[in-house]
């Protein structure tokens, strides 16, 4: 490989590493038949949570403390980038019997 390309590649990799922290991951949570699974999830600040709504009904992922409120239309996906550490209990505003917990580590 030409040194010029190598340098470019290193630069791209370095830039990529800066833009996306090494530990950033996408965590998928499924809502199906009014069940949130997994009901408890651990993640880190910088990770993305992706809720997949498989029901024909609209749901929400709403933090009990009001920190987030993600609308999830029927058969659609919603995402949230985690910015704050803590334990967040959340529920669906339309079906408050749907409950789960998100643990975010620093």
């Amino acid at each position: 490989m030409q040194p010029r390309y190598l340098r470019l590649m290193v630069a791209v990799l370095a830039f990529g590493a800066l833009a996306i922290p090494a530990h950033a991951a996408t965590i998928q949570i499924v809502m199906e038949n009014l069940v949130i699974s997994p009901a408890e999830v651990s993640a880190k600040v910088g990770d993305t949570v992706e809720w997949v709504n498989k029901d024909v009904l609209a749901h929400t992922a709403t933090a009990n403390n009001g920190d987030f409120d993600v609308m999830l239309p029927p058969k659609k996906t919603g995402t949230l980038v985690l910015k704050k550490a803590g334990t967040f209990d959340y529920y669906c505003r339309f079906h408050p019997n749907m409950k789960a917990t998100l643990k975010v580590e620093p």
Partner: protein
Amino acid sequence: MFVRLAAALAAMTLMSGAAFAQGAKLTDPQIAHIAYTAGVIDINAAKQAQAKASNKDVKAFADDMVRDHEAVNKQALDLVKKLNVKPEDNDTSKALSKQAADKLAELSKLSGAAYDKAYVANEVAFHKTVNNALEKQLIPSASNPELKGLLQTGLKIFEGHEQHAEHVAAELK
């Protein structure tokens, strides 16, 4: 006057008990009809609320009820079509529809905060009655596993609605 009110309340209690009287085992076509009818009743109540409610949480709740019950009833229709089951009218469906028509007429005479409160209180009561019937009567009586499954999901949805209605009722106090 109080005697008359008490008599009316007693009659109402008897009636709501009668809609889901224990008795002959219900068939799948009858169960499908009852579940669908309950959905239609709640959609009609919600449409009245969309027109009459003044509180924004009550209006939003009514929107949620129309959206959810229409989605569930569409699933129910798709299922009966697939199973080649023809929903069959029956005494429980008739009693439910009659009570619902009376309730709509009663609610139509109210307005403002009094209407909002009465609508939400009735939503709590109606979902309680239907959930109880689903759990104790309709789900155990259903023979087809897919129909049973849909009723079980329906129960979870309506339990959610009952809690949602309770939250809204608490906010109105």
